[in-house]
């Protein structure tokens, strides 16, 4: 991985400091999430992104306010980066009513439509066709916006990847497919899964630009993502962006992450930690040590408040089990399903959420 060469800063020091604080938020949020998972306050799957903060924060920073974001299931960091309040994310992980998906989605299915975040999705590569369709809708609505579609390195061997890239190129759609290549699809190293492990080269097959960038270099991520998003937004040119990074934790919290890689490898990668590297840049720019300590302390307070809010948030009402499943007005359509129903459509659907 190339070491940063001398070049003009992509963002000024104040902005870099702000981005650093967001990276700290993501790092410490994930640490807290793992703690809460082990305390059994979070259930299900829980995929942490520790180590990937520069890729996460840098790419989202490159989005304009009205651009759209779609991700896979490793989405805590992306939600936070997009500005979803930590309390709303933690509440969702806790399965509470005040979660950003009202306790229906959990760790993998965070979203915030108001912030243009159209979901964390749980099936590998499933979000790619959807991102393609969001981009198609932007074109149809003549909106000068772009879609950033995050995926992992494991998703590039799915059919949906090929179909989506082909459609995006064929129809000139404003979408950037951003491969967060953290070296392993679950427990399988990229070169054990991909015949062409230089994943960005696959863009060639669809006549679109493909770039590989050091995903732990915050400014490099911002620069490349921003440039490709601009081309998508302004010229309807789709692209593939491969960010090389590393996840410190296992695939999910259930995976210790050491069956398929060595502790030495993890330790070696931690020496290139994106937070450390960004802190170095800030030190060079004259930021003092105390500032970093303040950021840590402030973030810990934010997270303590988020956990408290999640604990206080009520569980979703069981009477609203089916809330959201069907649109308002569907009650009439289901009314005749009732007689003799052993499945309680009346209770599940009617008292619940059909259209309230």
């Amino acid at each position, binding site marked *: 991985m190339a070491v940063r060469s001398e070049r003009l800063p992509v963002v000024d020091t104040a902005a870099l400091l702000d981005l650093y604080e967001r990276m700290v938020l993501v790092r410490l949020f994930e640490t807290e999430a793992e703690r809460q998972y082990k305390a059994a306050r979070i259930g299900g799957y829980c995929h942490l992104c520790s180590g990937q903060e520069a890729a996460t924060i840098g790419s989202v920073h490159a989005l304009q306010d009205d651009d759209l974001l779609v991700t896979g299931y490793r989405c805590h960091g992306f939600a936070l980066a997009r500005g979803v309040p930590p309390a709303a994310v933690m509440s969702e992980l806790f399965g509470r009513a005040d979660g950003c998906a009202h306790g229906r989605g959990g760790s993998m299915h965070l979203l915030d439509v108001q912030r243009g975040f159209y979901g964390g999705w749980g099936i590998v590569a499933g979000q*790619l066709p959807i991102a393609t369709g969001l981009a198609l809708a932007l074109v149809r609505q003549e909106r000068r916006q772009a879609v950033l579609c995050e995926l992992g390195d494991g998703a590039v061997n799915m059919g949906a990847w090929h179909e989506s890239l*082909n459609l995006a190129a064929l129809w000139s759609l404003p979408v950037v497919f951003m491969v967060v290549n953290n070296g392993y699809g679950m427990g399988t190293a990229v070169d054990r899964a991909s015949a062409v492990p230089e994943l960005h080269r696959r863009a060639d097959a669809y006549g679109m630009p493909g770039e590989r960038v050091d995903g732990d270099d915050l400014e490099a991520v911002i620069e490349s993502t921003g440039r490709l998003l601009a081309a998508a937004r302004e010229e309807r040119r789709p692209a593939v962006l491969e960010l090389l990074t590393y996840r410190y934790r296992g695939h999910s919290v259930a995976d210790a992450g050491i069956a398929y890689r060595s502790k030495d490898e993890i330790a070696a990668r931690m020496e290139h930690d994106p937070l450390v590297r960004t802190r170095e840049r800030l030190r060079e720019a004259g930021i003092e040590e105390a500032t970093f300590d303040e950021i840590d302390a402030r973030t810990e307070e934010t997270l303590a408040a988020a956990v408290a809010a999640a604990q206080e948030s009520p569980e979703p009402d069981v009477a609203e089990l089916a809330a959201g499943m069907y*649109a*308002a007005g569907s009650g009439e359509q289901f009314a005749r399903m009732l007689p003799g129903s052993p499945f309680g459509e009346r209770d599940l659907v009617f008292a619940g959420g059909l259209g309230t």
Partner: protein
Amino acid sequence: MSTETLVPDPVPAAPASEVMTYREALRLALREEMERDERVFLMGEEVGVFEGSYKVSAGLLAQFGPERVRDTPISEEGFVGAGVGAAMLGERPVVEIMTINFLLVAIDQVVNHAAKVGAMFGGEVRCPLVIRTPNGAGNQLTAQHSQSLEGWFAHVPGLKVVAPATPADAKGLLKSAIRDDDPVVVVENLPIYKEKGEVPLDPDHVVPIGQAAVARPGRDVTLVAHSFATVRALRVAERLAAERGIEAEVVDLRSLRPLDVETVAASVSRTNRVVCVEEGWPTYGVSAELAARIQRACFDDLDAPVERVGMAEVPLPYAKNLELAAMPNEERIAATVLSTLELA
């Protein structure tokens, strides 16, 4: 000079309905909805230049242009998913899949994505997507191209599934599906595409989702069916009336999810005997669901067990005699009806 006021010839009243084929009725629904709502667009393999594999979209490219009648590559997963994404952003995509057999290539997008949008994201976003696709067998298309898999989709909470058996219902249900705020699978039917029927011309006329129809009233036994099985059931009913004086009532489900158990149960409560007919395999099928619902709703009214007729439980063979034997043909339906009436 006469001061008489000139009275214009009276304008002839527009006809309320017209006889047309099932495919023409679908085309009229698409045209009316695309004229009514700019957000509606059609997408699928060869829907534009080729005018659709079954010519449902004939003339639409000329009228609406390639942005709204969009030819796709052979990429069902890709463009069904693109429909999901476009729908989430407020568009009204109508995606055509050449036959329901090929919808399996996109089933992840239908079941794991479209069906989940509403509930999984807590009602924060909706997915008003329409998937149009025909089922059907009987032309020696063999095992991979002859299936009726609508029950798979009707199984899934979050989806709605309709399966019209007449031109009028094809128009009315497709229009309802396009106007609906949830993902709807509209199951068309290969043998019915060419069938003709009276179709209301009022652009505001729709057939509500979730309501079955009594396609033929009768007192002796109820036949419950959908899609092409309804056509078969009606033929059997006419034959039994003519040959045996048996008056069978035919309930056409029209919607599979929501399922109109009310209309089915009301019929069975009158006739006390019921045969469920489908073109799919009965095991875990639409008729299995019906049997469960009917025994619960009509337990005290039944004079005979709920009977079922469906596709033989084999991948459909090619040879004509084998194919005919496997299908829920009219002889098998009639024999089952007589058996449930204890007349066999």
